[in-house]
């Protein structure tokens, strides 16, 4: 509608060029990343070696391709977004916070009549009850810019039973050695700071969206491995259910912690577990799986980006 704008100086206004185009867009194997700010790090600098987790998730398709599938889940948390992000590499909570869900699964399964096959749900939930040593030895890797992943050596996703027909397809596509290498990676959670997490072995991406200081929307995207058996997507979706009893445990903890932060009795949250004075500046190192180094590392990245333009 041009009428009414003649001789108003509209052509010289900020509005004249319409919506601002996003100038920095990168399509990485089907995942599209956009950067609105002209400053800051470019794509390669920002992600660096952490892209190997995207690679592994995509390589798990015999066709080297993922398809968004199964619907997008959204769920609301009355807590700060950082609690969700820190939780992704917090390996000291499962055996306590999830005792009610995973512990009950283990107990009920013990009493179940003997059947030939362990149900998929039991296989998924029971490993949350693994002992501290399991999580210590699982390892955590630290990359630049707050990124990192749990599950360097193994993870709670390691012992899922084989899906019939899948390995043969992988072998045909990649050769036996490469197929084994791809499926031998059992990275648990890869965090892309500030607000994305992916799970390669179960093809899932969670996006943490801050709504307010005490409100976070989580969007959970699931992917189908193109040319792989449907059973893999079925497992992904079972893991991903929002009304999952495992999710109930977590949300309760986030919301209690959020309430706790309202108290001025102690304003600090301690992230000192397995701290080492020489850790700042180190990158691509694998450390004890129960270290809080990833969280400290995220705050170092936060400080770096928040002060970049100063």
């Amino acid at each position: 509608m041009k009428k009414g704008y003649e001789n108003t100086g509209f052509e010289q206004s900020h509005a004249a060029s319409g919506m601002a185009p996003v100038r920095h867009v990168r399509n990485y194997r089907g995942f599209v990343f956009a950067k609105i700010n002209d400053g800051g790090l470019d794509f390669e600098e920002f992600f660096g070696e952490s892209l190997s987790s995207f690679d592994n998730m995509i390589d798990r398709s015999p066709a080297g391709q993922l398809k968004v599938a199964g619907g997008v889940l959204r769920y609301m948390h009355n807590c700060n977004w950082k609690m969700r992000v820190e939780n992704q590499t917090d390996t000291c909570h499962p055996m306590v916070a999830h005792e009610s869900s995973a512990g009950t699964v283990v107990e009920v399964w013990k009493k179940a009549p003997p059947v030939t096959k362990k149900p998929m749900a039991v296989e998924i939930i029971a490993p949350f009850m693994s002992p501290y040593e399991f999580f210590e030895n699982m390892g955590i890797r630290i990359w630049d810019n707050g990124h990192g992943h749990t599950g360097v050596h193994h993870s709670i996703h390691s012992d899922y039973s084989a899906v019939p027909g899948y390995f043969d397809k992988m072998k045909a596509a990649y050769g036996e050695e490469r197929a084994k290498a791809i499926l031998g990676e059992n990275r648990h959670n890869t965090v892309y700071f500030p607000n994305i997490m992916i799970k390669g072995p179960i093809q899932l991406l969670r996006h943490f969206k801050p709504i307010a200081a005490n409100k976070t929307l989580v969007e959970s995207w699931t992917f189908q491995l193109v040319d792989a058996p449907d059973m893999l997507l079925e497992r992904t979706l079972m893991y991903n259910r929002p009304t999952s009893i495992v999710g109930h445990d977590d949300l309760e903890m986030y919301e209690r912690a959020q309430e706790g932060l309202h108290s001025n009795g102690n304003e600090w949250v301690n992230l000192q577990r397995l701290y080492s004075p020489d850790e700042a500046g180190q990158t691509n190192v694998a450390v004890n799986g129960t270290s809080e180094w990833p969280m400290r590392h995220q705050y170092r990245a936060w400080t770096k980006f928040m002060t970049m333009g100063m």
Partner: protein
Amino acid sequence: MSMVAEAQLKNAVPTDQEMIDFMVREARLIDQQRFDEWLDLYADDAFYWTPLEWDQTDPRLTCSLMYEDKLLLSIRVERLKGARTFSQKPTSRCHHVLQTPQVDSRNPAANNYVTWTPMHHIETRMDEQTLYAAWATHHLSVENGRLKIKLRRVDLINCDAAFGNIQLFM
């Protein structure tokens, strides 16, 4: 607390009224948190399904809010009783308002009956109270003179909204 014991069916084929009474009793068992008795209404191969998408047809390759067999339902019931179940300290309470259930189809030869029950489910814990509006579709069959649920499908009017914890059964 009144016990409202379950009555045996009078005949091999259930009447509409018997199915309606069964629906009303199910809601009461949930509201009174008599979950072991509630679980007993389900056939061994039953599923409880809350779709995520409107008109969802596939529970396996499309995400659902809930799609659980009897083993998972029994785990859920056990968990609610657990001493270390922090999300139930204090416990949740719920309240159902049902419209009169309607019998959509009856097929005695196949031992399959389908009912449709519009309802409001209110769930509350501490100061929070949430209203869920839904339609429950039950697929029933008769086993040893008793009605059993084979599939309970709960379609929420806002199935695709971003929810927090829904801890009880709708």
